[in-house]
């Protein structure tokens, strides 16, 4: 449904997207995660025909974005990261306008608009002017707008950005709802946890390169199987590092100025045994605690450990 082959985008010498290879099958919700400037918006703007790839190919619904952009536009619903709305229209008129742009059959426009407004919880606001809606409501309206022509693919660029916690929750509900519609959805975000409940697969984009692609379940399993432990204590030089590296469950030791950060893959009982061994080995332990795990960071670290590049 969405396929990219060695997709590249360069601005002069700057490589915004580097050889992106992606395959998203029909009905999959795919999350594209990366920090600001990683290239998420550039990748999505190429897929939505707003910009042209420097090299490589991208196919949406079987249509190549450079050769058949018109068919691609008809197949996608695109929501940009920063968007504006036509303030002086009511919610219903807004949807009707975009339905006209997509040449949707007039006989079904009203019914479809009503259905979509119900889906994004805006039914009561259908005669309200768009400028009277909150930011969160406008973002949900945008999702309804993307669906007005019943596209096969939805491309949502940071749909929950700039929202307060309540609106984020509402948006998450809407996204879960979309998932039930069976659409192929590509969502970008700079927070992986935000996508955990809606995405089937996640790709991590780093400096324009897609470094990891994995099923969200695999990522979540990793996050529960691996943990980061923070240890602070006093020990003769080299003892701490020796004791830690002797434990087969310790994957990585990172020495910090005031302690050690340990990537650990054992059970809680094994973790307790590690503490015991440290104390018995002569380490005066002042802190031994588990740190909150950032799934994205964890996954990146694991991939780097596997590749030996961390």
């Amino acid at each position, binding site marked *: 449904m969405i396929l990219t082959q060695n997709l590249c985008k360069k*601005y002069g010498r700057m490589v915004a997207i580097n050889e992106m290879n992606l395959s998203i099958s029909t009905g999959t919700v795919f999350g594209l995660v990366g920090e600001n400037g990683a290239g998420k*918006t550039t990748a999505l*703007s190429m897929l*939505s*025909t*707003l*910009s*042209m790839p420097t090299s490589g190919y991208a196919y949406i619904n079987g249509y190549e974005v*450079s050769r058949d*952009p*018109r068919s691609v*536009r*008809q197949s*996608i619903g*695109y*929501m*940009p990261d*920063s*968007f*504006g*709305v*036509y303030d*002086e*229209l009511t919610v219903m*008129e807004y949807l009707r*306008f*975009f339905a*006209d*742009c*997509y*040449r949707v059959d007039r006989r079904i426009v009203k019914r479809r608009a009503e259905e979509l407004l119900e889906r994004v919880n805006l039914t009561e606001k259908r005669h309200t002017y768009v400028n009277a809606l909150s930011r969160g409501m406008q973002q949900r309206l945008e999702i309804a*707008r993307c669906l007005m022509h019943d596209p096969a693919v939805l491309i949502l660029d940071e749909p929950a950005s700039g929202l307060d916690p309540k609106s984020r929750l509402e948006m998450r509900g809407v996204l879960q709802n979309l998932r039930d519609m069976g659409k192929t959805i590509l969502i970008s975000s700079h927070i992986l946890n935000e996508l955990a409940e809606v995405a089937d697969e996640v790709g991590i984009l780093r400096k324009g390169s897609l470094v990891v692609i994995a099923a969200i379940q695999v990522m979540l399993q990793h996050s529960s199987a691996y943990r980061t432990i923070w240890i602070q204590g006093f020990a003769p030089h080299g003892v701490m590092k020796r004791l830690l590296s002797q434990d087969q469950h310790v994957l990585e030791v990172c020495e910090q100025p005031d302690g050690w950060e340990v990537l650990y893959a054992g059970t809680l009982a094994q973790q307790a045994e590690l503490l015991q061994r440290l104390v018995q080995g002569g380490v005066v332990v002042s802190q031994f605690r588990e740190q909150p795990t950032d799934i994205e960071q964890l996954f990146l670290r694991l991939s780097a450990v596997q590749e030996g590049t961390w």
Partner: protein
Amino acid sequence: MRINPLLAKEFHQRMRTARAPIVITVYLLGMVVLTFFMLYENVQGQLYLVQPSKSQQVFVLLSLLQMTVVAFLTPAFSAGSVSGERERRTLTVLLTTPLSPFGVLLGKVLSSSALLVLLVVVTLPVYSLVFLFGGAVPQEVLAVLGFQLLTIVVIATICVLFSTIALRSTWSTVFSYGTVGMMMVVFGALGYGLKTLYQQNPIELFTLHWSQFFYALNPLYVEAALQGAVSAKPAIWLTFTEFYAVVILILLIPSLWRLRPQWFARLSVRPSGSEKQYQ
């Protein structure tokens, strides 16, 4: 057949506010009052000795006044049309719909000239009063009306193209009013200046030629020529149309570049920076 969605949306938006009917009413009342006083001046309170030549002058004066008003009003409606979409960040979404850049431009031209076309059409009955006193024939009125509509569309198109090329509404407004100023004042002044030169040196035929050319680019002069108020070549309006068609075609290329830089990707010339800057 479907109406261009942008035209339908903007006309709907514009016409449902109180501003549009107020503008039309005030303008119409102004024209009626002006016409009444000018015609009253013509008949001087008596109807025995009506002078058709004076009635003709009233018609010429009214139509020139209307041309000036609509020419300077058109940029107000069209100079920020596409740049405004860009500034409101609605253009990106519009460009991901199947609406082509030509569709976007056409919708913007039609929607920004629609109210002005309405202004011109509603004054038609006022012009018709001139028939009562002679001096103008219906064909003349229709020719003037047609030329005014053509001028509105020409100015609106140029302004919409400027608003596509210039990334900011401020710049497109400056370019648009600059162009209208050229059309209404500079070309007329050049025509007049060159004609004066010719009158002083009748041998310099090229000055006469260029004077006629510049006059043909001035909407006020062309309109006066259509009414027979000034001497000019028979198809002066054709020169006007051809020249501005060329201007529009030239401006169309960078406008399309701004909207769909991808179309120009096969050429070696590529837009600098990101396409997102334009969209």
